[in-house]
């Protein structure tokens, strides 16, 4: 589904990613862990097309296509979803209107007719229940006045609505209390199918108590330096990132 080969990327001349390679297959959950500044968020930015980052080397193929040939919304329409670390507020635009536009734009790209208001509201109710989102959020402006936890829940709700093939969860656990964490993780687990895949980017192991990854990768200084099964996350938690650093120096 996703193949990243030798990816190098920089922001304002500063090299962040220095030869990252990763392969994600349908049905898999990959956790990417690493200390601050290792390049975790840069990876999600490059995957979704953020223009602030310049890719200097390497290739990314998504479903066999060169990802760099697609602009932001084409990537979204092709099924790539980013759960933002810092979701943006859009005053005046209701969640209903926002989601309806998004869902229908994506349907249009698949040559499907737009959903009627009735159908849409029903679908929205179902998805809200799925991610345990309080109903009044939908009538408020996008992320405006949402608490940190509500914003993250809202991201998972949007993920439920849009049914992406590849979901990238960028530090979705940051700023969440344990209940919110559970709700967010439940949402992700419920949305898991054999056809879709997730990349969970996180600093801490605790999210992985709830979302069980198939693979854990350690990102360090712009490269994946270690990959293993879910037990790696526990080991990291126990020994800290210094352990990796030491291991690398050896």
């Amino acid at each position, binding site marked *: 589904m996703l193949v990243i080969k030798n990816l190098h990327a920089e922001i304002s001349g500063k090299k962040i990613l220095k030869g990252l390679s990763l392969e994600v297959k349908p049905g898999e959950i990959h956790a990417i862990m690493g200390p601050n500044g290792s390049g975790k968020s840069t990876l999600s930015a490059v995957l979704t097309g953020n223009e602030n980052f310049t890719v200097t080397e390497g290739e990314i193929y998504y479903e066999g296509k060169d990802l760099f040939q697609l602009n932001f919304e084409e990537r979204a329409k092709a099924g790539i*979803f980013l759960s933002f670390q810092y*979701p943006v507020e859009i005053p005046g635009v209701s969640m209903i209107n926002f989601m309806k536009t998004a869902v229908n734009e994506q349907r249009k790209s698949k040559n499907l007719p737009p959903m009627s208001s009735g159908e849409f509201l029903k679908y929205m109710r179902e998805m809200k229940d799925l991610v345990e989102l309080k109903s009044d959020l939908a009538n408020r402006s996008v992320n405006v006045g949402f608490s940190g936890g509500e914003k993250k829940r809202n991201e998972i709700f949007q993920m439920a609505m849009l049914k992406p093939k590849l979901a990238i969860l960028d530090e979705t656990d940051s700023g969440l209390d344990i209940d919110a964490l559970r709700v967010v993780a439940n949402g992700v687990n419920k949305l898991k199918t054999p056809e879709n895949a997730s990349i969970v980017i996180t600093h801490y192991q605790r999210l992985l108590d709830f979302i069980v990854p198939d693979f854990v990768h350690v990102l360090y200084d712009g490269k994946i330096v270690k990959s293993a099964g879910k037990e790696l996350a526990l080991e990291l938690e126990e020994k800290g990132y210094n352990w990796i650093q030491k291991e690398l120096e050896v």
Partner: protein
Amino acid sequence: MEKEQDKVLREVTESDYKYGFVTEIDADEIPKGLNHETVRLISKKKNEPQWMLDFRLKAFDKWLTMKMPNWAHLNIPEIDYQDIIYYSAPKQEPKYTSLDEIDPEIKATFDKLGIPLDEQKRLSGVAVDVVMDSVSVKTTFQETLAEKGIIFCSFSEAVQNHPDLVKKYMGSVVPYGDNFFAALNSAVFSDGSFCYIPKNVRCPMELSTYFRINAMNTGQFERTLIIAEEASYVSYMEGCTAPMRDENQLHAAIVEIIVMKDAEVKYSTVQNWYPGNKEGKGGVYNFVTKRGICKGENSKLSWAQVETGSAITWKYPSTILKGDNSVSEFYSVALTNNFQQADTGTKMIHLGKNTSSIIVSKGISAGKSENSYRGLVKIGKNAENARNFSQCDSLLLGDKCGAHTFPYIDVENESAIVEHEATTSKISEDQIFYCNQRGIATEEAIGLIVNGYAKEVINKLPMEFAVEAQKLLQISLEGSVG
């Protein structure tokens, strides 16, 4: 590589004004120029009584002593008032009783504008007076309205058929010498709409006037007079378009509204005069005086306007809150793009006790345009417990446009509560990116955000207008982020 947003900006700001066509019809025009003879000629053409001519001549003499106002934040090129045609009417006797008598070209014009003159085709809830250049060509549903005692007709007809009402109220809210453009209008106005709602009558349909400038070198000077008697109600809408022409065209209108005790008037405008091309050539100069008076107790006047057109807009729909407990609202979205300039806002003059007013103004500037809000809240000596809340927001798209706010507050009574809030914001790249990431293209995203921003005002418009206004905002702005 050209940034996606810049590309969209370029594409969209170059999109065409779709009402810019010209209708080929024979017109009865008088020669260019303005003097006492012109005024007499217009009056004669309209077969007016002496008192009307006297009013015009008084106004003209006043106008001759006046200077064009220059206090607005506008750069108005010199206007040669002798180079304008002050009267142009589609040939054929104006005022058609039956649809068959209307020039098919005119009918086709309004069909194209989405304003069918055929009552059968219209939404049953809207009666419309259609004004082309200097005259009203058709008023629909007159008979239906007459059953309730409502008078809805062209201004010229009102002068002929209801002279007492016209004499009594014309100039009572906007005196002929009120300002330069009001004086000009009072001297040379050629037509407009007249509306009278009798006591205790709730007007069963939306009334609307559709203004169209067609002829070349012609100024449009219409006036609207609305009288809502005690405990009556009417919702009134106006819309306007003009052909694309390289030269500027002058539009100087007057609207007067009188609201009696317990009555309510809603006045909505979607202004879409030709704004000029993307280099700032051509476009309509829109210099309009709109004012209403809440004359009786508990009366209410609401203004809602969406201003997207005109090269220059100079317009301050205002309310005099004379009756105790009277209420007025002003909801406005003014959008400027390319080289458009707008200086618009309102005046709320509180004279009565317990009067209250709300001002919500949303400015949107894009391109190289200049957009100013100018508002006055005046609380008179006797206006005990007057209240005003003003909110003026500006949204900037790109970094070459300007947004300005000029609020004036003048309070002479200590019991008044006057609040003013103002914000300035930009559509951020992060917001656009967020939308993009959900599969919403930049154009749609901007439309969504701008309409969200303007929602509070759009919601105040009658349904039919609200839909049009939303589309208009989207067309006028899509992608204007630099």
